[in-house]
């Protein structure tokens, strides 16, 4: 056992990287659920985003174009879900599950000619002076830009939901779509926009895995992160900053447990392996003791005639 082998600065820096896909997918799903829609297709949108981003950045040579393509890819796939649930009034749970299965299959098909190819590298932000500060530099100022975008999206979502009129409308639609409709708001439009935002965020999260964290394309490479994001939103009681906290906790403990294993800490590996799930759930459950509850219309279909 040699704890000194673990470099805390590198550890914190890599936990932020490990948490980012989860954070992006989680914050997107939070907005979707706040509008009263339960989209279980996060995993499918992530994996489609991963292959769209990968393919386009390989073809174009630019990781930024790839990331935008990933957001478009995720959003387009989510439109399918929006059509099924908002216009065809299909069951949201079933449609979401179908979206995941469809996304996994579609991405495998799209990715067939991209196995074993290396994507163009995304340059890390390297700010002179700031990046060179000991300790703080590597933690705060020398990541890829997407990581900061993720945090910015969380802040923007928080401000949007809390302070803006549009955010208030979105929450109203999620709490009582009949009341919102009676006030003259277009429930379907608001929900479709929220679903597309969720798709774009999930796509970006997927592309973060295939372009930055891993970086390569392999089938099924999101390996269940979309499902963890779904659980995270619930345990974070639909609060943006708690999603951030939960994602960092989960990412942090995932990375920490690997580091502890490599350092030979004498804790049984099974406990280490389950610790990210356990600790994240525990912390968030304790925090959500303040009775904050789900949006009242979550998962219910809306039609103006009913």
């Amino acid at each position, binding site marked *: 056992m040699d704890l000194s082998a673990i470099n805390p600065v590198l550890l914190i820096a890599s936990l932020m990287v490990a948490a980012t896909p989860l954070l992006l997918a989680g914050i997107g799903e939070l907005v979707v659920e706040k509008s009263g829609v339960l989209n279980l297709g996060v995993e499918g949108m992530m994996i489609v985003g991963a292959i769209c981003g990968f393919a386009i950045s390989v073809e174009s040579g630019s990781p930024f174009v790839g990331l935008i393509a990933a957001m478009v890819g995720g959003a387009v796939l989510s439109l399918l879900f929006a059509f099924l649930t908002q216009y065809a009034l299909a069951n949201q749970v079933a449609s979401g599950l179908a979206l995941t299965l469809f996304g996994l299959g579609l991405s495998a098909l799209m990715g067939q000619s991209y196995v074993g190819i290396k994507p163009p590298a995304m340059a890390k932000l390297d700010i002179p002076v700031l990046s060179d500060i000991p300790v703080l530099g590597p933690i705060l100022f020398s990541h890829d830009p997407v990581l900061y975008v993720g945090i910015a999206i969380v802040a923007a979502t928080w401000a949007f939901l809390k302070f803006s009129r549009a955010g208030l409308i979105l929450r109203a639609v999620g709490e009582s779509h009949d009341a919102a409709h009676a006030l003259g708001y277009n429930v379907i439009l608001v929900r479709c926009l929220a679903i597309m935002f969720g798709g774009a965020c999930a796509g970006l999260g997927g592309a973060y895995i295939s372009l930055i964290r891993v970086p390569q394309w392999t089938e099924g490479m999101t390996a269940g992160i979309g499902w963890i994001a779904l659980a995270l939103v619930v345990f974070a009681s639909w609060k943006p900053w708690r999603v951030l906290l939960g994602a960092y906790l989960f990412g942090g403990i995932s990375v920490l447990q690997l580091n502890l294993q*490599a350092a030979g800490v004498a804790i049984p590996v099974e406990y280490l392996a389950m610790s990210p799930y356990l600790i994240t759930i525990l912390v968030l459950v304790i925090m959500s003791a303040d009775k904050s509850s789900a949006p009242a219309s979550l998962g219910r279909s809306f039609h103006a005639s009913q």
Partner: protein
Amino acid sequence: MKLTKILTGATLALGLATTAMAQDKTKVGFVYVGPVGDGGWTYEHNKGRLAVEEAFGDKVETTFVENVPEGADAERVITQMALQGADLIFTTSFGYMDPTINVAAKFPDVKFEHATGYKQADNVSIYSARFYEGRAVQGHIAGQMTKTNTIGYIASFPIPEVIRGINSAYIHAKEVNPDVEFKIIWAYTWFDPAKEADAATALIEQGADVILQHTDSTAPQAAAQTAGNVVTFGQASDMSEYAPFPRVSSIIDDWAPYYIARTQAVMDGTWESVSTWDGIGAGMVGIGEFSDAIPADVAASAMALKESLADGSYHAFTGPLNKQDGSAWLAEGETAADYGDGGLAGMNFYLEGIEGSIPQ
């Protein structure tokens, strides 16, 4: 009216024809633990399947199901395959052992082949490859290429196959570099690129400059490439897209000859339940081309080691070897038995010098 009748007749005839054709064909099913595009373990099994199709053409029909979780789901998938009329079913992961045995008991006429397990039955053969021979070559190269004397090992599940690999790599690294130290991470997955990449990164951050992996994706290769000065080896498949550096060599599983032979046996009616465990000599384990990154003298001695393993003049586990707790395992000159007490098939202990403990 007439047209409908003709169509019905045609459909009926077609239906009969396809049924008749299907009966002539030998149906071979494959159950995979990962996606066929994983670039490693499942990719090679699928190459074996394609080789069967190529060898027998119209006489064989193959099906496969990928991404099958180990456990209850596997039992369902295998049952489904047997119900659909498969004559021979290959289940290609350790965790399918009990499901395969369970389903086999219900379908005595279907032949089953389970990879890397140890439970045999009248209609269940077991087959595996002596990957530890390849690990010996890896350890030999890794021990001489590490500058930090720290070798990182991404292990999957604590099963004999994986433990054999760790032990074999360790003793051969130790032989050429007495200062070498192994850092082992149990990932508890066969395939999770993000987790494998994180594990590789954690090992690299803790000073490992050689990464050995027993997981199936190429993610650790990509992580090593990003780090720049870290050596890796292809696992299960050649992973040559990462050559010449970081990937300097690889262990390649070649299942095609075995799959073709077993399919042939079913066709001829000569299939019997057997236990096959072949290594470098029989060609089931291949060693990928050494890249130029390996110093010439190291490559030469590694090649000599490979030859001696192939012709049987050297056994990867040759005494004197002690278990981790210091108790004797093999005496001077003694080689490990395959089965029985302290045999390789059930290996569940580290050898002397490895730190940490195997998860129980």
